[in-house]
C-alpha cells in the first residue's frame, strides 16, 4: 500500500474520515452509553489514523470507520468482559411476520423504543442500529460486523421481532390490568 506524505494524509483524513465523527459518536452512545462514548470514539479515530494508509479509497470510509468502532468496542469488551458474547452456533432461519398488523406500534414510542433497544442482545442491537439509523446496506453491515449477509438478515429479523415483543410487553405493563368503563357511557339495563 502506498504511503502518503503527512500533509496529504492528514488532508485526506480530514475530508474523508472526520465528517463521520457525529455518526460514530451517535452509534457509540448506543453501544456503550454516553459516559464511555467519547473514549470509544477517540480510540477508534486513533486506530483509523494509524491504519489510514490501508484504507482503500474506492470503498466506503464510513463503513470502514464503523468496522473499526466495532473492533475497538470488541477489544474493550474482551478486556473488561462485562457482557457475554452472543452464541450463534448456527444461523437462525428467518421467521415471517404474522403479528405486526395489530396496533401496538401506534402513538408516541421513543421512550419505550429506547428502553427496548438497550435491552436487546448487543449483536442484534448493533445490526438494527446500523440498518435503521445509519442505513447501511446488508453487505456493508456484514463487513462491519464481520459476518455473512445471511447472519445480518437473521439478526435483523430476530432483533426486530424481539423489539416488537419488548415494546408490546412494556405497553401491557404500563396499562391498567382491567379497563374501567367511561363514566359518561350510559348504563344499559335489560328491560
Amino acid at each position, binding site marked *: 500500500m502506498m504511503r502518503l506524505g503527512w500533509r496529504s494524509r492528514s488532508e485526506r483524513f480530514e475530508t474523508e474520515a*472526520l465528517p463521520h465523527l457525529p455518526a460514530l459518536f451517535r452509534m457509540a452512545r448506543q453501544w456503550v452509553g454516553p459516559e464511555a462514548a467519547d473514549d470509544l470514539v477517540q480510540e477508534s479515530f486513533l486506530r483509523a489514523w494509524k491504519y489510514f494508509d490501508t484504507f482503500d479509497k474506492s470503498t466506503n470510509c464510513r463503513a470502514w470507520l464503523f468496522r473499526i468502532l466495532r473492533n475497538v468496542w470488541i477489544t474493550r469488551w474482551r478486556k473488561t468482559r462485562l457482557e457475554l458474547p452472543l452464541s450463534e452456533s448456527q444461523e437462525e432461519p428467518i421467521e415471517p411476520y404474522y403479528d405486526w398488523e395489530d396496533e401496538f*406500534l401506534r402513538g408516541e*414510542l421513543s421512550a419505550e423504543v429506547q428502553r427496548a433497544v438497550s435491552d436487546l442482545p448487543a449483536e442484534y442491537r448493533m445490526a438494527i442500529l446500523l440498518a435503521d439509523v445509519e442505513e447501511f446496506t446488508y453487505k456493508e453491515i456484514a463487513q462491519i460486523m464481520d459476518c455473512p449477509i445471511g447472519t445480518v438478515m437473521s439478526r*435483523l429479523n430476530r432483533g426486530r421481532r424481539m423489539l416488537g415483543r419488548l415494546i408490546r410487553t412494556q405497553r401491557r405493563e404500563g396499562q391498567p390490568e382491567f379497563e374501567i368503563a367511561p363514566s359518561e357511557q350510559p348504563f344499559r339495563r335489560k328491560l
Partner: protein
Amino acid sequence: MIDCKQLREVLDLYADGELSSEAIAQANQHIAECGACRRAVENLSRLREAIRDAVGRPKPSPELVERVRSLILPRWYQTWAAQGIAATLVLAGFLTFFAPGVRGSAATALDYFSIRLDTSPRQVVMEGTLLCRDQQLAKQYGYRPMCRITGHHGWLVTSDGRFWGLLEGSVSQELIHNSSLLGRRVKIEGRIFRKAGSIEVSSYEFL
C-alpha cells in the same frame, strides 16, 4: 404475484430496500390489495422511524472534536510540554553554535568525552603546521566556518595530511587561540589519542 406468507418472509428486505426492482413491484402489488400486509409494512416502517427518533442526533462535544482533530497534528505539536522541550533544544542549539563561550565549552567537553573513549594514548613528539580547524573543515567538507564569530581554532596538520585536534589546556592555549601563529611549523610533545584524533600538549617549540 406473491402471497401474504411470501411477503411476510421478505418484509425486512422490503423495508430495508434490499429487494430487486421486480420483487418490489410484486410486493407493492400485494400490499395494495391486502390490508393486513399493508398494516404490517406500516408498522415496521413506524418502528424503524421510532428507533431513529429514539437515537436522535446527539452532537459530539467540542472537546471530543478537538481531541480527535489533534490526532492528525504532528506529535511534537500536540502538547505544551513537547513544545517547551523543542524550544529549549532550539535555544540550546543556538547558544552552542552562536555564543562563542558556550560553543567553545561544548567543543572542549566533546573533545574530552571522545578521548575518554579512546584507550590508546601514548607519548609522542610530532611535527606539523598550525592551521585553523574551521577553515580546514570548510575546505574539505563544506563545513560552515564560525571563525568570524568564535575566532580561529588552531589544529595541527602533519605531513601525511592528517588533522590533529589540540586539547584545551594551559599549555595549548596559545597554539589554539592565537591566530597570529597560524601557518607556523611547530614540534609538539604530548600524549596522542589516535582514535579520537587529538593531542594533549605537554610542551611545544616553533621550528
